[in-house]
């Protein structure tokens, strides 16, 4: 009798867990959607020198298109260098050109967006603080690893979250 109730309880808990995690998987909350989107962007921007990966102008073009599609048409990217000087890129086309250049110059690139924290979230806008860790390698030099904190603003268009603005956050300032 006790064993029967114990087994029934376990079964109910298991069914509840399947429903709970299944719901979260198939209907992720907006915060999870945004974090997944950023993870997808990091993966899309990464490439390796694996011989199975295509190279050349066409491959670079396809890569650039794939990355650029994560950005809004009027996306704005602002970077501060080590001397706190400001550099910027505006527009999806500029992002596409930069991605093309990146693919052409380096044999491999790995991007990771770590510790994402949602600062603001509305129905169709959000602001995230995240750390970008990237490793770039070209034929001539050893891999360079670097990290940078970013403030990312996203907008929702046609049910897709697109990057509207990226700004580097100077954690250590001159």
């Amino acid at each position, binding site marked *: 009798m006790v064993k029967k109730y114990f087994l029934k309880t376990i079964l109910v808990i298991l069914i509840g867990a399947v429903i709970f995690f299944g719901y979260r998987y198939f209907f992720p909350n907006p915060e999870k959607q945004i974090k997944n989107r950023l993870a997808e962007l990091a993966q899309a921007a990464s490439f390796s020198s694996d011989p199975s990966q295509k190279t050349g102008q066409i491959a670079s073009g396809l890569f650039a298109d794939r990355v650029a599609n994560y950005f809004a048409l009027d996306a704005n990217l602002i970077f501060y260098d080590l001397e706190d000087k400001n550099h910027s890129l505006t527009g999806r086309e500029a992002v596409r050109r930069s991605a093309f250049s990146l693919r052409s110059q380096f044999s491999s690139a790995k991007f990771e967006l770590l*510790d994402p924290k949602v600062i603001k979230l509305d129905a169709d806008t959000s602001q995230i603080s995240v750390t970008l*860790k990237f490793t770039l390698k070209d034929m001539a030099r050893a891999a360079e690893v670097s990290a940078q904190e970013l403030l990312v603003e996203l907008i929702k268009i046609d049910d897709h979250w697109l990057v509207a603005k990226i700004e580097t956050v100077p954690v250590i300032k001159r």
Partner: protein
Amino acid sequence: MLRKLIRLALVAGLTFLIFKFWLLPVRITGLSMEPTYHNGQLILVNHLAYLWRSPARGDVVAVRTSGLRVMYLKRVIGLPGEKLEIKDGVVLIDGQPLTEPYLEVGRKQWQIGETKLNQDEYYVIGDNRQVEATEHLFGRVLVERISGRALW
């Protein structure tokens, strides 16, 4: 058998708590803290070091980014409220030269203009001064960004 399992679970739990919330394992990437720390070296950062006291000059601290998965490891050379300048590679604190025994001979002649630190700021810098200042990340950091002190 059950006692052994409970003991094992307690040890595993304690280990998890220690390395998650107190002593953070950190792998060093980069050369900015040479010769004190080397690229690829594994160290522990005491995340609770500044619970009871403030960072002191000479402390090697971990500066967090948006989280703790990536941190900058730098040395504190300037304290809140101080005026700091670098002339011919020598750090001047309120006009007085700072003795830095951890530096290697042959540092570059950095020239950095005077900075006055706010009451919530520290000045942090790497030990590797044999590179140009333009290749080195250093400067003012807010106290809330300092996440702990290197254990050794």
